[in-house]
């Protein structure tokens, strides 16, 4: 981890576009982190979310996120590729989210409406959001209006 990265900027007026090449003896955790960081810069309109999987830092694309929730005082991010842990509070993670289709559904959870397949209202009066992968979670009644407004604004259809 103490490895220092040499950075060299080459400008060439005849070159069209921008290219980044990472040169290393082999692929390592450092090279993966560099790739993620560069990807994050490339998508600065939709910043990537830093999260850990087995103590390895990864930058998550907001499009991949299904749910972000608190469990045993930890903030868990469920994506299409698996579970990650954010080392920030849910509120701080929420501040990083720019996608309008990532909405709060309770004090403990944020979900991706693009991954939702529908809503269910049980006989006892519990609201649940159902996801395309078959999972589901409960929705606090006070957040229903905000979800409705997001859907009315057509935010989940907007490409970011």
């Amino acid at each position: 981890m103490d490895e220092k990265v040499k950075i060299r900027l080459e400008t060439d007026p005849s070159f069209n576009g921008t290219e980044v090449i990472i040169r290393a003896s082999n692929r390592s955790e450092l090279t993966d982190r560099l790739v993620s960081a560069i990807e994050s810069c490339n998508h600065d309109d939709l910043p990537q979310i830093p999260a850990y999987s087995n103590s390895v830092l990864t930058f998550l694309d907001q499009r991949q996120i299904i749910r972000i929730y608190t469990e045993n005082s930890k903030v868990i991010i469920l994506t299409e590729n698996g579970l990650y842990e954010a080392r920030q509070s849910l509120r701080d993670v929420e501040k990083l989210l720019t996608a309008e289709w990532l909405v709060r559904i309770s004090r403990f959870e944020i979900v991706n409406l693009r991954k939702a397949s529908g809503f269910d209202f049980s006989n006892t009066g519990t609201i649940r959001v159902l996801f395309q992968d078959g999972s589901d979670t409960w929705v606090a009644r006070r957040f229903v209006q905000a979800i409705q407004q997001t859907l009315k604004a057509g935010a989940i259809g907007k490409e970011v």
Partner: protein
Amino acid sequence: MRRKCFILSVIGFLAGMLIGNLIAWLCGGKLVNTRIAEWCGSDIGAIIIQTLLSGLLGAIAMGGVVIHDIEKWSLLRCAVVHYLLIEISYVVIATVLGWYGSLTELLIILGIQLVVFVIIWLIMYLRWKTRILELNELLKKTKSKQSK
């Protein structure tokens, strides 16, 4: 939530004081409950006890509204807990203040209150059900736009 509970309890206390004395006056034809007056030996004492207990019932009923803000609880659970909180407080306070003449009378009052609660719950349930149906329609519409 605590702040809301406090504000509602104060409003409930004031309303309870007013309604309790009004009911005592309408039912007995006078402001002082004779049973309480005999027990504490003075009319003023009886009015104070009646006013405070009526206010307490109002505070519990109104303050208990915050139960419906508990996010994790279903609509039914919130309603049942709120109903039980009110009814238990009502039975205790009504017994002390002599608001009912017999057990049958008390059961009728509790039955009427239960019917009112069930009606309120049904209205709330149907409103939420309609809202969730609308939410599903909206989601379907937005998704179909997205796929085009």
